[in-house]
């Protein structure tokens, strides 16, 4: 199989979806790494549900403050104009529709945009965290994930087998193979990773993809 994007390139591609002035929440895992790929001159504000607006990239060893961490409990830096608040306020911002973009990781996404990202049935326990609040309050939900599981099974499926985080909540899927929009008609790939074809992406995607004439190769 041809190799797709690295995790860093997935993050870089996600960051391209941001617009000047956006308030953005980055979920645990791959999404928190996106903070390292936002262009320095781009004015966006990162929100963290543990009570912070305006944090920056992941902190270097010398910069670590144990009381300044992101959703994944990784030490981060602070930008001018930042603010702190409690968790109830943090989630009121989310539920109240004040967050423009949420980026989440996933185990599975369905063709209808259903998301499963908090529990694997075979493990018997999971951690829901803030994901269910984020998907129902944010204006745009982006999933950043590997296109397949470690053993090569599609993560983009007809119907999620794992417990749901939310129904029809995902707007855009960014993987190592493609950028795919969830539309009322189905899944529409917008871009494929350099060197890959739509057919190759389809082979590792369970539902039928709708190939649009605008489909292009991702520019990195």
């Amino acid at each position, binding site marked *: 199989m041809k190799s797709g994007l690295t995790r860093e390139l997935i993050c870089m591609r996600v960051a391209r979806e941001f617009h000047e002035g956006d308030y953005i929440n980055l979920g645990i895992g791959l999404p928190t790494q996106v903070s390292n790929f936002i262009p320095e001159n781009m004015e966006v504000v990162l929100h963290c549900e543990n009570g912070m607006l305006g944090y920056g990239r992941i902190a270097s060893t010398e910069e670590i403050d144990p*009381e*300044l961490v992101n959703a994944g409990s990784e030490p981060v830096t602070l930008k001018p104009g930042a603010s*702190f608040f409690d*968790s109830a306020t943090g989630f009121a911002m989310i539920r109240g529709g004040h967050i423009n973009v949420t980026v989440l990781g996933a185990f599975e996404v369905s063709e209808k945009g259903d998301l499963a990202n908090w*529990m694997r049935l075979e493990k018997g*326990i999971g951690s829901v965290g803030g994901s269910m609040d984020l998907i129902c309050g944010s204006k745009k939900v982006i999933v950043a994930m590997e296109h397949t599981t470690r053993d090569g099974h599609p993560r983009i499926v007809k119907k999620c087998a794992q417990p749901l985080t939310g129904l029809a909540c995902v707007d855009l899927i960014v993987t190592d193979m493609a950028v795919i929009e969830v539309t009322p008609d189905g899944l529409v790939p917008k871009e494929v990773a350099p060197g890959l074809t739509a057919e190759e992406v389809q082979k590792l995607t369970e539902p039928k993809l709708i190939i649009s004439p605008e489909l292009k190769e991702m520019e990195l």
Partner: protein
Amino acid sequence: MPVALLGDGHIILRSVNKIYASPESAVADIPDGATIMVGGFGVTGVPFTLIKALARKGSQNLTIIANSGGGRLPDIDLSIVMKNGQVKKLITTYPVYTGRTTAFEERYLKGEIEMEMVPQGTFAERIRAGGAGIPAFYTPTGAGTKLAEGKEIRIFNGRPHVLEHALHADFALIKAHKADSMGNLIYHRAARNFNPIMATAAEITIAEVTEIVEKGQLDPEAIITPAIYVDRIVIGEKHEIRFD
């Protein structure tokens, strides 16, 4: 002397002098069967000193309400209370982590501890509601998922909402940055998280702080938790925070 009434009918005295000399004295009257909120998110804003004192005190059959049941710093976080077998039930949002097995998880999978999993925003709002005298509320969060099963659903603006009930506790163990002698609290950066809301939702709130100053020494405009919510203050020990 004012008193506090715990869920099981226990009566606890509220001391007028809120400053306690030791963490042991601050938790000495936590009875078996108590419901306890514990602040913190990951390793930040966690009242490690009070958790260790609770483990030494050894109260049994506890219901713990905390964002996680410990596991990032298992020698000082709630893992020690879980390992001790002191906990009957955990109400939580984030009990397991990728790449490590927590003491809670081991006991839960053996059927030794009950768990109630709550979406984190609902968890925060249930605590806020508990402190604000709101018995229940509807939220869109979790509708259509496993976590809404068995709960009342009502449609608002064409969208399903889940009825969620307030959380209240007998004790809250919280971490703040500074207190004044009245019990007013300020926090440091992202260590605030669940601590200010938990302070409002318990009969007895015990705050672990790094410094206690005289009343009047904190700017009234800057106070995050007003003293009315705080019953006991104790100086916390310094802990090494590792990120691994």
